[in-house]
C-alpha cells in the first residue's frame, strides 16, 4: 500500500515535470526574440527538471542516490541563472536589442547597455 502511494506521488511529479518541460519547449519555439525565449528555457530549468528529479527521488527512496539527485537540483539551480545571464549579456553585447511591446509608464527608460 505504502509502495503504491510512493509510486503514485513519484509518477505524478515526473508527469507534471514533463508537462512543464514540454510547455517550456513550446514557449521557446513560439516566443518572438532571443530574450523572451529565455523565459521558456527558465521553465524547463526550474519546474521541468526540478519536478522530474523530485519524482526520481521518490523512486530512489532514502539512499545515496537521493543525495546525489538533491545535489543535481542544487547545482542546476545555481548554474542555470548564471548561464542565462551570460547568454543575455552576450546577446546584448552582440548588438541584439530586446523587442519591447510596452513602454514602462512610471519607470525610467533603460540605458543602452
Amino acid at each position, binding site marked *: 500500500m505504502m509502495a503504491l502511494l510512493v509510486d503514485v506521488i513519484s509518477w505524478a511529479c515526473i508527469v507534471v515535470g514533463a508537462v512543464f518541460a514540454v510547455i517550456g519547449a513550446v514557449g521557446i519555439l513560439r516566443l518572438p526574440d532571443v530574450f523572451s525565449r529565455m523565459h521558456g528555457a527558465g521553465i524547463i530549468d526550474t519546474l521541468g527538471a526540478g519536478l522530474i528529479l523530485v519524482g526520481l527521488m521518490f523512486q530512489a527512496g532514502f539512499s545515496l542516490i537521493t543525495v546525489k539527485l538533491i545535489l543535481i537540483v542544487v547545482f542546476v539551480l545555481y548554474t542555470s541563472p548564471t548561464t542565462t545571464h551570460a547568454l543575455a*549579456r552576450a546577446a546584448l553585447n552582440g548588438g541584439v536589442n530586446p523587442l519591447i511591446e510596452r513602454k514602462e509608464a512610471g519607470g525610467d527608460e533603460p540605458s543602452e547597455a
Partner: protein
Amino acid sequence: MVHAISLAGVLCVLWLLLSGHFHEPLLLGPGVASVAAVVFIARRMDVVDREGHPIHLTWRALPYWPWLLWEIVKANIDVARVLVRRRMPTDISVINVKATQKSDVGQVVYANSITLTPGTVTIALDDNILTIHALTTSAAEGLNTGEMDRRVTAVEGSS
C-alpha cells in the same frame, strides 16, 4: 583560514556522499589527498574568501530558500499559462530595478533569484542597477514591489 577549513569540510562530505565509500582506508586516503589538493589550489588562486565561499550567509539563507522555491513555483504556473494560450498574452518590457544590497555577493544572489523566477530575466547588472527583461506586466509588477530585494538584503544582513 576559517574559509579554508570550511571548504575542506564541505569537500570531504561531498566526496563521501558521492563515492559512498565510508570505511575503506585504501580509498579514503586518496580522497583526503584530493580534498587537500583542491583546497591548496583554491587558496593559491585566492578564491577562498568571504566572496568565493560565503559561509556567513548560510544561516540567514535558510529561510530564504523555501520562500524563493515557492515564488518559482507560482511564477512557473503564471508563465506556463501564458505560453499555452493560442494568442500568447505577452507584454514584454525592459525595466530598471535598484538593488539595495551592499556587497557583490548580495547583488548576484538578487540577480540570480530574479533570473531563476520564470517571467523575469536579469540581462545586465551595472553598479547597483539591474536591467530586467519581463515577459508579462504582472511579472514586472511583482518585481516593482521590491519584496525579493528586501528579502535578499535581509539574507545579506548588516555584516
